[in-house]
């Protein structure tokens, strides 16, 4: 089971969470999240499920997305370098790379809650693909734990970084411990 995120024109009825967004440089829209084994809509990307929280506050987001049909191997050195820069850089409230298939990097989401968008001035992923600064409404983005480090690798090739553990064979649902017991939010 994966968590998926996509930019949509309207709120999808089957999404587990969604929020509208506005952008300075472009038309706004809706960011929506789904659970599932396969992409729910064209253009959907896999995201670290810890990002998603229906009780999350509004956030400023640096949304880095490759143009359709464009991708890099996740093991590309520019991706590794950006991840190192995230680990060494100033903290943010939410971060996840975007993955499609088993090994393709197609962007990242970096977010901060509150009004201080200057905290997003350091987004290493913005050097890889086009970045948009957007304001996402409440009901979608929670907080991801600060990555422990120094790991830069994915736990399972098809999973986005910083998701940080292999499936626990002793946990039937395979849910990350950090996703248990956080409020009553339905999550990816």
């Amino acid at each position: 089971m994966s968590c998926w995120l996509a930019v949509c024109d309207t709120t999808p009825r089957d999404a587990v969470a969604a929020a509208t967004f506005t952008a300075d440089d472009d038309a706004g829209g809706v960011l929506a999240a789904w659970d599932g084994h396969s992409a729910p809509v064209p253009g959907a990307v896999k995201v670290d499920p810890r990002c998603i929280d229906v009780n999350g506050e509004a956030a400023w987001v640096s949304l880095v997305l490759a143009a359709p049909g464009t991708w890099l191997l996740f093991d590309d050195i520019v991706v590794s370098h950006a991840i190192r820069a995230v680990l060494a850089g100033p903290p943010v409230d939410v971060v996840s790379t975007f993955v499609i298939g088993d090994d393709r990097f197609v962007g990242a989401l970096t977010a901060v809650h509150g009004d201080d968008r200057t905290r997003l001035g350091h987004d290493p992923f913005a050097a890889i693909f086009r970045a948009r600064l957007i304001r996402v409404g409440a009901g979608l983005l929670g907080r991801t734990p600060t990555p422990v480090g120094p790991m830069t690798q994915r736990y399972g090739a098809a999973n986005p970084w910083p998701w940080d553990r292999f499936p626990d064979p002793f946990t039937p649902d395979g849910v990350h411990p950090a996703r248990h017991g956080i409020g009553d939010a339905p999550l990816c």
Partner: protein
Amino acid sequence: MCSGSDTWGDLAPGCHFPDLRLKDHVGNERSLSDLAGGDPVLLHFYRGWWCPKEQAYFRKLLRLQDEAEVAYTRFVSVSVDTPQESAAFRAGLGARWTFLSDQGRRWVHELGLLETTDSSHNPYVPTVFVLRPDLQIHASFNGYWFWGRPTNEELRQAFREITRSIRPDWHVPRK
């Protein structure tokens, strides 16, 4: 009482390390068990940013960091520095792992790791533990004297032993 080498009493190899809860360099409270996830952990107690011996040892760990970042292994460094001091020290070093702050000196006493010969800072005795993912102590090193600290080669050997024992596919799966 956990049996084992009596160097550190309950912190001897074979014992389970207490599940510390401390603020990280960002200011978030973190538990050691969650930081470990499912990976081996280097748990490193150091005096503070001001100690030249710590600065020298961190330079060694920084060289190991470039291997650990691809080896499903985690580092955690703990001191009595404030989160702000830890964050600044970490950034200056170029360390890309988690630093924890025991500013209130709760755990330094509970663990029995207070360096009693420094009544000015009341810091940790420099100590390194290599932990299994469930926080069982695999190896411990008393770094009060600098040469007591583990070399990177000793750490590699410890991580290899743990990884071999916890990864069911250590032996390459065959169809």
